[in-house]
């Protein structure tokens, strides 16, 4: 009886921190913080091989051919590039510099008058045709894709600077989509030769 009259003591709250820490650590372990990042691409629509194809006519001088061999050697046009040429020195690698030159120089690819936001600018018609061997390592392949994309990004920056006086990244959505439309990332991948092969 005396016991029930006794005032209940305070619950010791010093272990509260421990419990909270435990929960915290549990959530740290079970969750992931990483945002999904990746390089976006659009595949060409499927063409039935049995159907008659009408190939798109592209002026030969507007195409820069990039071939990647199984050993990781790269042919750009008629010149050979190695894995070292994919490495960045400052903002460029040798490959991205080459592609950028191809896009910007008048003697390499044709320019087409393109309307951007009511004004007309000369935009390169150049496109890069990428072909990789089936045995090429994905790491090399993506690095090549990366450098090709980089060249187009630099070119977009140029056009964006010309039109809006700001870099492409700094533009708002509408202006950015105008630039995207005017300067599409023209990296075409060759149709695989043997479609039955897995």
């Amino acid at each position: 009886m005396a016991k029930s009259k006794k005032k209940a003591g305070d619950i010791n709250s010093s272990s509260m921190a421990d419990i909270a820490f435990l929960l915290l650590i549990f959530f740290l372990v079970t969750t992931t913080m990483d945002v999904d990042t990746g390089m976006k691409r659009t595949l060409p629509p499927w063409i039935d091989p049995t159907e008659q194809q009408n190939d798109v006519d592209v002026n030969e001088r507007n195409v820069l051919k990039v071939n990647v061999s199984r050993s990781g050697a790269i042919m750009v046009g008629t010149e050979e590039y190695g894995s070292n040429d994919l490495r960045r020195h400052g903002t460029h690698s040798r490959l991205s510099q080459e592609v950028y030159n191809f896009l910007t120089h008048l003697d390499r690819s044709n320019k087409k008058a393109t309307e951007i936001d009511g004004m007309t600018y000369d935009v390169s018609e150049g496109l890069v045709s990428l072909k990789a061997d089936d045995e090429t390592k994905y790491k090399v392949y993506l690095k090549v894709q990366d450098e090709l994309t980089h060249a187009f990004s630099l070119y977009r920056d140029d056009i964006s600077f010309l039109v809006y006086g700001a870099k492409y990244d700094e533009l708002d959505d509408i202006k950015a989509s105008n630039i995207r439309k005017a300067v599409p990332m023209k990296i075409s991948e060759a149709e695989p030769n043997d479609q039955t092969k897995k």
Partner: protein
Amino acid sequence: MAVMAKKGKKEVPAMSTSSLPDIVFMLLFFFMAATTMREVDPLVQVQMPEAYEITELDKKNLVNIWMGKPLGAKVGEDALKIQLNDQTREVSDIRDFISATTVTKGVGPKDIVVNLRVDEGATVGKLTAVKQELRKAEALNISYAARATGNN
């Protein structure tokens, strides 16, 4: 001066730890809000390649396809496997997977972005086979998953 001397001799009281739980709870809530639960357990090993030109992907209509060596594969064994959701499947299953996903998500195949999480040691030939299937399934928006260069 006498007052000063007295103050200096006084012992520093122990720091109150009563607010420690609050701080930890705050951290806890931050992590709960900022992170997402791991949805699928990986069945294949994917070491993502590094790249500079990457963008953040919107989680909403993202569909993941993993490609790599199965977990626990022996050294030298390089049979690439494809993981869709939480099963390892074949390349020919991709079309069914895409059409099933579009039904559950309630969007067309053109509205989804297929995130290809491919191991950096994989070969392009296998990737091409996957891409051909995606083209047949009309899922044309893809992304090559990569991590920012320099980050781990």
